C-alpha cells in the first residue's frame, strides 16, 4: 500500500484499493455461481467443475461409500472359529469373545462355510459382543481375522438413545435383516 501519499489522496486511494481487490474476489465468486448453475459453460480456471452444486443434500441423497470404507463392524458367526485374534489386537478392547471346548456329542468335524475359508471349528462360540460405542474403526480386527468373517459394513447410521444399545450381540441377530440385532 502506498504510504507516501498524504491526507485526502491516501483516504480515497484506500477506498479505491479496497473496492478493486474486493471486486476481484467478487468476480471469482460470481463466476463460480454462474458456473454451478449452468449459466456459463466456459471452463473455469482451465478446469471444468461439472455442472450443478457440490453440496449433497444428505438425508435425501446419500453418498456411495467406497468398498474399503470402515463403518460398523459385523461378524458372520457361522464363519467364526473363536480364535480370539480380533479381541487381542483391538486397541480399545471392544470385542468380547467367550467359547468352550466342544462336548463329545457335538460335531467335531464341523467347518466354516466355503466363503469363510473352510476352516475347522474346534471351539463352540458362546458369546461374541462388540461394543460399537468403544470401537475406533481402525480396522485391525478385520485384517487379522483368519476366516474374514469379521467385516466392516457400509452402515454408518446407527445412532441410539442409550449407550448400552451399542453392545451388539452377534449370536443373537434378526434373521430377516442380518444387520439389525433382534432386540433393537
Amino acid at each position: 500500500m502506498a504510504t507516501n501519499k498524504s491526507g485526502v489522496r491516501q483516504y480515497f486511494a484506500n477506498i479505491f484499493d479496497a473496492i478493486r481487490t474486493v471486486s476481484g474476489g467478487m468476480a471469482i465468486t460470481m463466476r463460480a455461481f454462474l458456473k454451478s448453475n449452468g449459466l456459463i459453460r466456459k471452463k473455469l480456471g482451465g478446469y471444468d467443475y461439472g455442472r450443478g452444486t457440490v453440496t449433497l443434500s444428505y438425508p435425501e441423497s446419500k453418498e456411495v461409500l467406497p468398498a474399503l470404507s470402515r463403518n460398523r463392524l459385523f461378524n458372520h458367526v457361522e464363519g467364526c472359529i473363536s480364535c480370539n485374534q480380533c479381541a487381542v489386537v483391538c486397541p480399545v478392547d471392544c470385542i468380547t469373545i467367550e467359547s468352550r471346548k466342544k462336548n463329545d456329542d457335538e460335531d467335531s468335524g464341523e467347518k466354516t462355510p466355503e466363503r469363510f475359508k473352510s476352516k475347522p471349528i474346534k471351539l463352540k462360540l458362546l458369546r461374541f459382543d462388540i461394543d460399537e460405542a468403544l470401537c475406533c474403526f481402525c480396522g485391525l480386527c478385520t485384517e487379522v481375522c483368519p476366516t474374514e468373517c469379521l467385516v466392516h459394513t457400509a452402515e454408518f447410521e446407527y445412532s441410539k438413545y442409550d449407550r448400552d444399545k451399542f453392545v451388539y450381540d452377534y449370536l443373537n441377530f434378526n434373521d430377516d435383516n442380518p444387520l439389525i440385532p433382534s432386540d433393537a
Partner: protein
Amino acid sequence: MSTATPEPGKLRTEELTINMGPQHPSTHGVLRVELITDGEIIKAAYPHLGYLHRCFEKHAETRDYVQIVPFVDRMDYLASMNMELGYVMAVEKLLAAEIPERAQAIRVIVCELNRIASHLLAVGTYAIDLGAFTPFLYAFRDREKILHIFEKICGARLLYNYIRPGGVARDVNKDTLAEIVEFCKYFKPLLHELDALLSFNSIFVNRTAGIAVIKTDMAVSYGLSGPNLRGSGYDWDLRKNAPYCGYEKYDFDVCVATAEKGELGDCWNRYHVRVREMFESLKIIEQAATQIPEGPISGGVGKTIKAEGEVFLTTECPRGELGYHLVADGTKKPHRLKVKSPCLNAISVLDELSAGMMLADIVALIGSIDIVLGEVDR
C-alpha cells in the same frame, strides 16, 4: 450529590479479565486463553492447556507397537498421515528396517495430500475467523476431494491407520493413482483462484499484514517450526534439510516468506507460506504418483515387533517438526513414547506476543499459528 460519580477527567479504569474459549470457534479446538485487557488493549494472555488431554503417552506404554498407530492418528487429527509417518519411521529406525521403494512413494503421496488437506483447512478457517466466509467453502470443496481419495485408499476419511511399521496397509491401485494425478490437475487452477480470492484482498491484508510479528530470532528461540518458522523468513524444512522417506528424489522448493505484504513474520506471511506450500506439495504428489515404482508395499518388519533401544526422530508435518522419542526395552510394548509437538511451541509465543495487541488481533494471531489442540495436549 453522589460520591460514586468521579470528577471529570478522573474516570476510574480497571483491568478486565476475559476468558476466550474453551468453546470459542476461533481457538480451533478447546483452548482457553485468559485475557487481561485494558479497554481494547491486551495486557497479558495466558493459554490454559489440557482440555483435550487423553493420556496418549502413558497409554502408549500399555499397547503393542501396531496398536499405537490408531492412537497416533488422534493427535493431530487434521494431518493423521503425517502423524503416523513419524511414529512408524521411529519404530522402523529402532528395528533398522529397510522399507520397499513403493511403500515409501505411497507414504510421500498420502502425506503430501494430507498436508494439502490440512493447509486448506487452516487457510479456510483462518479466513472465516477474519470474517471472509467464501474461501472457507472453496477450501472445503477441494478438501472433500482429498478425503474421498483417502477413503478409497484406506477406508477412512480422517483417522486412517494406514501407514504401518514396514510399509503401508494396502496398495494403491492404478485407477486411484490416476485419480490423484487428475486431482493435481484439477486443483492447481483452483488454488490460484483461492489465492486470488483471499490473499490480496485489502480487507484481509489490513487485518493480517504487520500484525503479531514474530521476528526471526524470536521464532528460533521459541523453537517454532514448519510454516510458522518459514513465515518468519528462516529457510528450514526437514524435507529438504534432512530428507527422509525419499523426499530427496523429488524436486520442490522450500517456501520462505517474502514479505510481499506486511513484514516478515506477521500473520499474512505465515498464512501465505501455507498457500504456497500447497503448490509445492502438488509438485511432489505429481512426481511421486507418476514415478511410483512397482514392487511390494511392505516388508522388513516381522509380524510381532519386539525392539530394544532408544531413538529420536523428527518429521516435517503441516504444523511443523513433530518429534518422537521412543524408548524400547525388548518387549512388545514401548517403554516410553514422548512426543515433541510443534503446536506446543507455537502456542507458547502467545503470551509474549499478545501484550499490547488489540483484542481483535488475537484472533488473527491464533489462526495464523495454526494450532491443533489434539496435538498440544495429546
